[in-house]
């Protein structure tokens, strides 16, 4: 597994991390991107499946979504509403919300895949982090 290969050094730190985390009551099972992606759903439909007139985004692959959002964020053409919206998020947050949207089925009767799965990670994906930061 590509992701496990990438993260194998983490296993060395796991005993320490487990002790630290045991001090917390719980660890959230909620994907980091869910709350971020939910702000897309007012226009792009619940779970990314839009009604007429807006593009659906559910099930698109995460690297493409991320790349599209980065393109909006790098644009200065504020006549396109997606440009200021993309500017609301850090690169890390854009990646997290892309992962979440990619995990949603294109059609509601499809089984929901695991969040993120083994998505191919684009070269320009942001560095690993467990925390997200808003733009200051």
């Amino acid at each position, binding site marked *: 597994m590509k992701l*496990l290969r990438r993260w194998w050094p983490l296993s060395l730190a796991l005993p320490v991390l487990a002790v630290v985390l045991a001090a917390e009551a719980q660890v959230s099972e909620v994907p980091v991107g869910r709350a971020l992606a939910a702000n897309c759903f007012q226009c792009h*439909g619940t779970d990314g499946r839009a*009604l007429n007139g807006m593009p659906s985004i559910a099930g698109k692959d995460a690297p493409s979504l991320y790349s599209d959002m980065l393109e909006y964020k790098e644009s200065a053409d504020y006549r396109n509403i997606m440009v200021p919206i993309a500017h609301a*998020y850090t690169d890390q947050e854009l990646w997290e919300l892309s992962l979440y949207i990619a995990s949603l089925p294109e059609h509601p009767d499809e089984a929901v895949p695991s969040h993120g799965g083994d998505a191919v990670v684009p070269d320009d994906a942001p560095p690993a982090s467990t925390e997200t930061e808003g733009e200051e």
Partner: protein
Amino acid sequence: MSPYTRRDFLKVAGASASVVLLPRSLRAQVASGRVVVIGGGFGGGTTAKYLRMWSPDVDVTLVEPAPTFHSCVMSNLYYPGRIELNFLETPYDGLVSRGVNRVRDRAVEVDTAAHTVTLANGQPLTYDKLVVAPGIDFIFPPGLEDPAAQARVPHAWKNVAAQAPLLRSMLRAMPNGSTFVLTIPSPPYRCPPGPYERACMVASYIRRSKPRSKVIVLDANPDILAKPAIFHHAFDVTHRGFVEYHPNAPVLSVDADTLTAITPIGSFQAGVLNVIPAQRAGQIAFDAGLVNVNGRWAGVDPMNFSSTAAPDVFIVGDANGSSVGKSGHFANSEGKLVAAAIGAQLAGEPENASPMLGNVCYSAITLESASWFTNHLIYRGGAMVPVPSSVAEGPPSGGNFERMFAWGRNLWADSLI
């Protein structure tokens, strides 16, 4: 490199031979419990829906007396006849099919100590978490206190199903050459651009059907509060001759018999008088003892919109006293934030410590063009603060007019279906 989530951490941990056994407390618990939501608008509807989606073991009861939902968002297009009332209507069937218990009644009493809500029919509901989303009520100016006066001077700022037809019938019956006087209160009020959009929509009707008439806008504020450049251009250029804008003109009193608004800059006698009164949280927030901001709004911790007056209570949408703008889109966003927070609390999991809220607002300028405004907020330092680079507005265009319809339909569906 890939981002690293808590879920991924657990996956890696499970695959590793070096991992120590994780304590039971680290495993996620299923959120369960009983949630009552008072109010089936953008905020309450979204909270109920997303609770069922994200925490399917939670029992959710929505208390809303209206038979169906009618949207204030886009309702200004009704006055020139660009849409009819049914376009604004969304049934509550969608929420029911998601497993929300729909109670068609009014909440008349809340006991936050006993965790009970009493309905108008006397039935009590118990809750583990309560969501109060009643929207706004009005602070009527002198002369508009009694219902007979209010019937002659509609606000059309809530209760769309009843108020909008009343106002439109008055507009259509207005003689050519008469004036439509629209008054705007001081903030905070529901939908800051809404009154200016209404002036544009009434002007769009007048210029075609009653060309000797005009709209007189009496604004309590020193300038246009929302999209000022766009609306100044709309009033001064696009609808030139059909809109007369007066800043610093708060309504001191109203004579409902003569349809006259009295302001510090003079008295304005109208053919149709549309007073949008000053606003406060919906009455049930007062009755529940939740109002503690300027005597008008229900205070919240903006990280999760929990009440600062009572435990296990959340205030979603226009009724809360946060700095978040009072819009349907924001109320939807708040609803999701609260659904996540309640789900986390009921599961004993940590809450999102840096939540964001998103907002998009389209405003019709003519019957063929619309503009937009967007802003995102992030929780920082105990407040919801704007992300500066996310704040922008788009000029009126035909494309935006079409996208406004798609935005409205998707917003209603995301809130209630």
